[in-house]
């Protein structure tokens, strides 16, 4: 059996049928075709499924989908700048763009520039954990960053670069961090 679920997804109203015992992760991936949250363990251990729920990073495999009725959910898909950024400028290393040509969030840019992702499976979860954290604490210490990412496992083992990249994003090494950019809605 399933029920209709209405919530806000990346700032837009969303409506989908969700099974009564289905996880938010399954609803996003299978009901809505949004495959950026990954399933690494389906039991809360790995963080690959991390999304932002009402402004907080959560593991979407531990959230029953129907409980997000009326709440707001953000995935990496919602982070790119609304406007298409146009063609990348030439030069040595043009600013990275999303596949659709949009400008990336500074955390994404930093991950890219620092070469943090290897296979990339843990990356969407890492991005969302880092964004939720920086929304709250825009000038963190390295220890605080490690703490914020402690629920996100990386099988490739690239932890150090992820932490360095988050510090760089916080310093504004690329673009300045946006305001909480509505991720609380």
């Amino acid at each position, binding site marked *: *059996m399933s*029920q209709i679920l209405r919530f806000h997804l990346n700032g837009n109203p969303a409506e989908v049928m969700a*099974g*009564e*015992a289905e*996880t938010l992760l399954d609803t996003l991936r299978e009901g809505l075709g949004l495959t950026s949250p990954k399933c690494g363990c*389906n*039991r*809360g*251990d790995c*963080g690959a499924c*991390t999304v932002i*729920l009402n402004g*907080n*990073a*959560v*593991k979407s*495999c*531990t*959230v*029953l989908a*129907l*409980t997000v*009725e009326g709440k707001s959910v953000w995935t990496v898909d919602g982070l790119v700048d609304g406007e298409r950024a146009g063609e990348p400028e030439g030069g040595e290393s043009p600013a990275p763009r999303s596949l659709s040509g949009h400008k990336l969030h500074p955390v994404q840019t930093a991950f890219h520039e620092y070469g943090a992702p290897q296979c990339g499976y843990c990356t969407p979860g890492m991005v969302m*954990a880092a964004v939720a*954290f920086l929304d709250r604490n825009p000038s963190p210490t390295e220890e605080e960053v490690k*703490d*914020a990412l*402690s*629920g*996100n496992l990386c099988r490739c083992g690239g932890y150090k670069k992820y932490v360095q990249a988050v510090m760089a994003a916080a310093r504004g090494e690329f673009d300045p961090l946006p305001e909480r950019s509505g991720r609380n809605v």
Partner: protein
Amino acid sequence: MREYEYHAPLSLERLFELAEAEGMEVRFLAGGTDLMPRISAERNQIPRDRKPPMRIIYLGGLGLDEVTDDGESVTIGATASLSALLDNGAVRTKLPALHEALREMAGVSVRNTATIGGNIMNASPAADSVPPLLVLGAECLLRSAAGERRVALSEFFTGPGKTVARPGELLVSVTVKPGRGGSAFRKLGRRKAETLSVVNAAACVELRDGLCESVRIAVGSAAPVVVRCTGAEQALVGKKIDENSVREAGALVVKALSPIDDIRSSAWYRARVAPTMVARALLAAAERKRG
């Protein structure tokens, strides 16, 4: 496959109506960090035996997440998230052992959804909030269609995953009277974050003229339920809390334990490290009282 029902009542009246369901397994859902992995695992398996339908009742719409401090006691609503409690001033200043436990529970993203009521009701011997709540003398408020009752946390757990709560009975809140004691919590996990305890310990110490007037010690993950260590407590009364006395008390702790081998640790290792964790919690609690 097993059938599931989902309800999100907005009042306790409705909740208790729903909680009475013949021929169904009724399950309350708070944060879901313990329950959802269990449900997903079950749904991913070929069912061996026919299970009755599960009725899932979500507690998030009931406003049971408030923390109130009337000066003498602190009452924590069952659905308060671990993150909210970690940020709560009354918890930080008046219940330091609980604050320390919250800091070491899981990681941020689990704490954002996980609730204190879920941690208690899941009744894991490794539940990190339980030793602090035990040494702080916590009391649980249970409610069902039949009415309310209060049960001391020390009498709440009957085995791994088992409590005195009857089917359909809701944990509403837990109340703690901090008193004059200093309290502390120490956890040994296999790593620093996102891991259940190999052994954990909490202590609450009251001092008079530098000597231990009364003390409570609790150890988790080393017996079927979290245990108080009365033998060690008695041995400390009237003594100075120092390296020597806590080592002696720690040795007595083992008598109260019945550790097992599991995926996190061996029984042998648990018995070896429990005294050390107790000694550390005791020293930190006494220091907090002095400082």
